[in-house]
């Protein structure tokens, strides 16, 4: 029993030490940058934070991944300095920011392309149009479109098995918005997963499969999958079916399955030197680092415009009144703002 009491005493002393510790650490606010938000943007923010370690080793940069929506909730409570977002802020979220008196600076940092893929053994799909994808994925297709020849008459009469993002994923929101025309509107009878690696496995082992997921997951598994060019029937942004590559995503010809990724910076935090120099570092290096982590860099011009916007502390969103990001040109948007 004595041993037990001794142990408890040690534990209590340890706990007391801890208590003292916290007073010393919670003080120096200036050296912290707190980032949270989308798991799609996470790898890029992580890479920037890692490189920033060499630039300013004393600044504590932390990154979480609560999802775009979860991150905006924390952002509106003033708990974080920067929110990673794979979609623009929604009008409800703008309202929440107004209510809690938080101003934000919206900055595009990269593109993310969605790849539509089929099994390596599939030799008949040469390209797909947005119209065909819509026919296949819209809610009305549920239980009805079950074979390849229903998508296009020249395809064989073979069953088609679908693989796509789970409903909690930002990829799901974006794909449905770009293809079906309405976010979160999709057929439900497909193999869904929030983990893109699971989808890669599914499509690569099922010869009747068709799936969609982030372009980076295709690039890392290119030997197991067949990438499908997409035709949006809009000749103003490139004629005919276009294959997603770094180049076609970046120059806006691979549409509509390319979306911009953003960071939202709390305007008050932006006054702190640590946050200011971190965001500037982010915009100067995101282009280079995006390639490494599998995102697609924005044109250099856009980073310059974004940097100017940040330095001028231009707050608010350019996506007012629920405008979506399908087919937008970031450079035009940023220029129009000035």
């Amino acid at each position, binding site marked *: 029993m004595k041993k037990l009491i001794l142990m408890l005493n040690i534990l209590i002393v340890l706990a007391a030490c801890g208590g003292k510790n916290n007073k010393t650490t919670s003080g120096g606010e200036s050296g912290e940058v707190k980032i949270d938000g989308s798991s799609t943007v996470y790898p890029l923010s*992580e890479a920037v934070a890692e490189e920033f370690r060499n630039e300013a080793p004393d600044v504590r940069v932390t990154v979480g991944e609560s999802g775009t929506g979860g991150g905006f909730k924390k952002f509106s409570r003033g708990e974080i300095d920067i929110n990673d977002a794979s979609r623009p802020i929604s009008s409800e979220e703008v309202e929440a920011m107004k209510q809690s008196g938080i101003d934000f600076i919206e900055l595009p940092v990269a593109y993310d392309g969605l790849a539509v893929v089929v099994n390596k053994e599939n030799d008949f799909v040469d390209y797909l149009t947005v119209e065909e994808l819509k026919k296949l994925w819209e809610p009305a297709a549920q239980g009805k479109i079950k074979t390849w020849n229903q998508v296009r008459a020249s395809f064989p009469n073979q069953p088609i098995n679908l693989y796509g993002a789970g409903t909690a994923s930002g990829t799901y929101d974006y794909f449905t918005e770009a293809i079906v025309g309405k976010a979160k509107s999709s057929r439900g009878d497909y193999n869904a997963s929030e983990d893109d690696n699971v989808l890669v496995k599914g499509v690569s082992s099922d010869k009747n499969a068709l799936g969609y997921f982030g372009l980076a997951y295709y690039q890392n598994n290119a030997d197991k999958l067949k990438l499908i060019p997409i035709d949006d029937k809009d000749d103003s942004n490139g004629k005919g079916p276009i294959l997603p590559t770094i180049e076609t995503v970046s120059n806006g010809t691979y549409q509509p399955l390319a979306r911009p990724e953003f960071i939202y910076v709390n305007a008050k935090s932006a006054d702190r030197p640590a946050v200011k120099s971190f965001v500037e570092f982010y915009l100067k290096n995101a282009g280079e680092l995006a390639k490494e982590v599998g995102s697609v860099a924005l044109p250099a011009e856009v980073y310059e415009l974004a940097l100017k916007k940040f330095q001028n502390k231009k707050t608010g969103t350019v996506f007012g009144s629920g405008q979506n990001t399908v087919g937008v040109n970031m450079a035009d948007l940023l220029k129009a703002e000035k």
Partner: protein
Amino acid sequence: MNSSQINKIKNLGFKSFAIVCTFLGLVVLAVLLYVVFSQGLSRIDWDFITSLPSRRASSAGIYTALFGMVWILVLTVIIAFPIGMAAGIYLQEYGKKNWFTNFIEVNIANLAGVPSIIYGILGLELFGRVLGLGNSILTGALTLSLLILPIIIVSTREAIKAVPKSLREASYGLGATKWQTISNVVLPSAFGGIMTGLILAISRAIGETAPLIVIGALVYVPFVPEGPMDEFTVLTIQIFNWVTRPQAGFVTNAAAAIIILLMFTFMMNGIAVLIRSRYNKKTKF
């Protein structure tokens, strides 16, 4: 075929069924270990343990996640152990058998069955927001303490229950008070059982990810926490993040981190077995 032969066949049938069931779990464990070890073992080296998180799979490490986990565990033990043990002692030794203690008992059993993510939501609101502790180690530890309290209480009670009545009566017979009896006779005899329960509860806490993600534990933390109010990440969150990354190298990292986590759990369970056997030898009823 007479009825005795039929019964023998039935017996044999059930016996083989039971053997298959026994080995089913072991086979699954063996497959898991094989997959994880074949993928991750070669990745484990000193650099992997002492490196900070990185975008390059080959230079990423688990240093801060490992320390975050140890911080969380130590704090969780400090918080949950005294409370859980005291509650167990009260319910078993002092609490009278009436509707109120019954009510408490039923609810502790209920708590043990609540999904861990619910504790996360509770922890986020109560500790993180109302008490203003944010997404700190302390919030995480308090949340996990709630999660394992029922386990500790139940195992403490079971351990105390196993102490024979004759020992208590002998102590009372010598004129000892209730507290003297508990502290000098009951607890030393039950200590092995209590510690076993505690360590098994900690093993459960190690594996938890969901409640920690809910309270806002981070993924990229490039520094070792220095106090209970610091932000943190833990091994399970790091693993969770790595398996969803596109680059194959991160999957190898995840496998390596899983091996480290498994070693931690096995070590804990080993200590529990050791303590139990030691105390069982020491106390003879």
